[in-house]
């Protein structure tokens, strides 16, 4: 018994590890599969995760022993759902548990497919992604398909309509189109957190490839999203793909030629696309932190407790980006600070020294009250930064106004000559005889 307790006590620190970017080791990912065959057929994708230091735990999705948390602590930092057909997870996992997992700041990768189950669709819908309701529909593109001698139905699409964001897809341009075969989804227009990463071409549509089109398809053209990402308000990131095979070795290694294009690429863009995308989803890129917010009057170093109107002040903040291994200085020229009371009085872009420090200086407005320094940094693909620091601003004190105004000299002159006259007059009046 004592031995058991000892084992448990030594286990506690292991069980209590939850995701923090500061902690590089022990980043565990639970991979739920329909069958272990996926482990081998999609091994390149898994290998790229493992080579980046992730610890993958492969389980069958209906394994009765799977669990996301134990004793209130999450056992994993991310979840990969490569089980498009699963109707009910084993163990204690259900859609609500997965959403709780995301709500607590963990990442999620979901791959659906032609025969995606209602459970997978439900999880996607909760994330703001609506898969085509017609379960037999797949994305077909008669103009943007991948040329193939054995694929005649144009469901294998070569898509090169990527989101324009270096932080999500990496700074290296993806030259080859991405092969896609699966179902399309649309994004809820009222959801501002979800982003289309890979869109279909304007000629694509989502329908059953076996039947004729008699009514307009529900999903059409470039509004079809093939792969989407979501960054929740707690910075948890979700990747949703309408196809599982896009992650497969076969697609990673396959050559690609888009219909109508003369260039034939030896290798599709899938490997680069999904490797880079997984880096973003797993917070190896685009995760910012702001530290060391400082402000003071020009020429001083200490932070005052109050400013006077018309003071000149300097503001600085340090911002770093997580690179997967360490915090690197963040370089950008669009970080802005607001001097804010009900509405911004001053909004200024910060200059940076390429070492992570962002700074600017400005004059305090001639309005007094309680102000805030606010940095609201919301950029495509980056985690949002929201800093605010309260600072009161007071008016001039009575003795801080200007004292010797030349325009007032005639008044002073009149008063003082009057006084001098009084002195002379008093003496003359008293002692004259």
């Amino acid at each position, binding site marked *: 018994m004592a031995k058991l307790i000892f084992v448990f006590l030594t286990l506690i620190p292991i069980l209590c590890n939850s995701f923090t970017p500061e902690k590089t080791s022990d980043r565990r990912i639970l991979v739920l599969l*329909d*069958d*272990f*065959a*996926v482990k081998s057929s*999609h*091994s390149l994708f898994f290998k790229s995760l493992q080579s980046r230091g992730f610890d993958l735990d492969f389980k069958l999705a*209906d394994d009765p022993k799977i669990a996301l948390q134990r004793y209130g602590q999450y056992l994993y930092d991310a979840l990969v759902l490569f089980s498009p057909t699963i*109707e009910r997870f084993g163990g204690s996992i259900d859609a609500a548990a997965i959403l709780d997992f995301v709500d607590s700041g963990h990442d999620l990768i979901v791959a659906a*497919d032609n*025969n995606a189950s209602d459970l997978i669709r439900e999880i996607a819908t909760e994330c703001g992604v609506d898969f085509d309701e017609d379960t037999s529909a797949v994305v*077909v593109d*008669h*103009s943007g398909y991948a040329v*193939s*001698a*054995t*694929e*005649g*139905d144009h469901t294998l699409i070569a898509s090169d309509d990527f*989101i324009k964001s270096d932080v999500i897809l990496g700074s290296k341009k993806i030259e080859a189109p991405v092969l896609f*075969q699966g179902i399309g989804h649309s*994004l809820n227009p*009222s959801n501002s957190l979800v982003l289309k990463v890979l869109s279909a071409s304007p*000629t694509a*549509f989502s*329908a059953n*490839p076996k039947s*004729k*089109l008699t009514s*307009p398809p529900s999903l059409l*053209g470039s*509004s079809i999203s093939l792969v989407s990402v979501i960054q929740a308000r707690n910075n948890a990131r979700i990747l949703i793909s309408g196809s599982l095979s896009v992650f*497969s070795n*076969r697609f990673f290694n396959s050559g690609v030629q888009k219909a109508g294009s003369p260039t034939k690429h030896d290798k599709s863009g899938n490997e680069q696309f999904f490797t880079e995308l997984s880096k973003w989803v797993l917070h190896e890129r685009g995760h910012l932190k702001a530290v060391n917010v400082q402000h003071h009057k020009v020429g001083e170093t200490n932070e005052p407790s109050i400013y006077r109107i*018309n003071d000149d002040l300097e503001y600085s903040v340090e911002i770093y980006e997580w690179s997967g291994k360490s915090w690197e200085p963040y370089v950008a020229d*669009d970080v802005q600070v*607001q001097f804010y009371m009900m509405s911004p009085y001053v*909004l200024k*872009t910060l200059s940076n020294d390429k070492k992570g420090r962002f700074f600017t200086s400005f004059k305090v*407005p*001639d*309005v007094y009250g309680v102000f805030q320094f606010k940095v609201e940094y919301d*950029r495509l693909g980056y985690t949002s930064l929201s800093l605010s620091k309260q600072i009161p601003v007071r008016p001039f004190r009575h*003795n801080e106004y200007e004292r010797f105004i030349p*325009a007032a*000299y*005639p008044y002073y*002159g009149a008063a003082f*000559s009057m006084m*001098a*006259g*009084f002195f*002379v*007059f008093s*003496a*003359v009046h*008293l*002692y*004259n005889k």
Partner: protein
Amino acid sequence: MATILAKFLLLLFTISICNAVTIPTPISDSHRSAALQLFHGSSSSLEETYEALRVFEILALENKPDVSAATCQNVVENLGSSSSLKDLFYALKVNGILKCKVDRAVFQGTASRLKATVNDASTLVDIYYTIGSLVLIKDQAPNVDMLLADADGTFHSIKALSQSDGRWRYSSDNPESSTYAAGLALEALAGVISLASSEIDQSRVNTVKSDILKLFDSIQKYGTDDGTFYFDEKFGGGREHQGSLSTTSSVVRGVTSFAAVTSGKIDLPGDKVLGLAKFFLGIGVPGSAKDFFNQVESLALLESKRVPIPLVLSLPATVYSLSKKDQLKVTVNTVLGSAAPPLTVKLVRAFHTDAKGSAVIEGKELQYDQSRGLHVLSVFPDNVDVGTYVFVFEIVLHDSGSENDYAIGGQIHVPIYVTGIVKVSNAEIAVLDSDLGSDETQKTLDLAGTDVVSLSANHLQKSRFSFQLTTPHGRAFKPRQVLLKLRHETKYEHIFVVRNTGKKFEIILDFLGLVDKFYYLSGRYDFELTVGDAVMENSFLRPLGHLELDLPEAPEKAARLPPLPVDPYSRYGPKAEIGHLFRAPEKRPPQNVSLAFLILTLLPFIGFLVGLLRLGVNFKNFPSSAVPATYAILFQLGVAAVLLLYVLFWLKLDLFTTLKALGFLGAFLLFVGHRILSHLASTSAKLKSA
């Protein structure tokens, strides 16, 4: 269990979707390059080394990594010492490929050690490794005495573990039966037969043969007419779960090795062997070394003439372009891609998927192109138009006697897409006045070009758009995707399916009926036409022009335009800078003007002084005696101090300091003032009275 199976099937179907409709292609160069990536020299265990070496051997890879020196040392170490049965087994297997220099005495010692334990081994796995090792020693050192004395007994002890349905148990005290174990048992039994000093009783061998047939009854099948078969392991408690790939390959290993040592024939159905081959090929290129080994080795065993050799019919391309005048090519190979025996491929019939009853081609033999190793249908018959077809092939072996040596399957259905360029013509777009339908403005369009039209209409009018599509053979063509898109300035889109009667596609937009759908939005609508089909080589998306639509005002109850997706790029990005507008300072006169006025204000004082001098002031009234004179001086000094204090107040002092000082000065001034004034008053009173 059934759901797991179903899921696996669906999954495999999606993984191999490329091959799902056609027949899987044989092992090719993609396998070879994948093998070099997967097995890259240094392996941690002998088992993995063996798998790598075996794969290289089967695929006949030339530029394989050379590991023989280090591995041979490892082999010799394992043979010499009393290592575990498994390690010994794989060391011998590796030695079988590498042919390391091993002393005969070492073999002798190992063999006698193994023979001693053969009868003690209780579990199937132990027996499997022991027998397997003995067989390997027999192959590698022919002059060592390997024969089993009590072969019958060993045979019996293995057979005792078999179950009625053809599966085996792992050990006698484990009731769980397993398909994977059946494979191991069959391989062990084959080993016992080859090691037996005397002939094994033929009746026993026959019961094992019937066991094999029973095992094949439990084979799993997927798809409806796909013809793919595999073995799957039922979930067993305790033991590690074997996937269907390793289970199937275990059975294949067992059955082929058993078939190799027995003289009589095992009546394996050819379609099931072909189905197994399809299963292994359908996996594609596995990503894990173990799966890769299982796949390649099983395929090699299927090709080893111990069972009917499966022949795979595959098509390099299933999309045929009429415009490029492609040929229909068919290849027939063994599973590892080597040449098939002389045979003829017959195209039994071909039919359009929409008209299954009427065949377009019937009973045609394909010509064999010796140089390329292809069976070719050189000319497509004229009645094959664009569309999707199903071609039914059949393989006929030239040597009818060898039919039992090969598994060729029956008729093979292959979907074929015949594509071509569809002619688009007679495109017209017009705005019609209501009911009468008289053309008001009719414009023709060349859909192959890029010209666009601009029209205008109001809600009482209609718009008609029509065009024709004809196939290369002049028939009507109905593509799957004929969509007309109207996009309003607000980016809101309306989609219409254009329907056809014969060759002619026509759509009439009655704006009166559409005002609700258009949300009463007047303004510019852009037309866009999308025509596309899998067999249409010139699928297109083309802007047609725009229409200025004048719609009535929306009634109050009309539906509002639903929210449109927001461009994500506009949501982010920096905001415009804001600078604070400071209050402007008050306007002041120039300094010179102020100074000039200062001088002006000083002038009266100077005038006053001058006036006093002109009047001739004197100080004769100043007290002459000492005490009053002191008071007078003090009084004047006090007044001067007060005035000076005022000057100081202006220059630097604040109100509080000034008032304090003024208090003291005031009290002092009161005192001395009283004294000097009373003195002056008494002096003047004396003067008056005098």
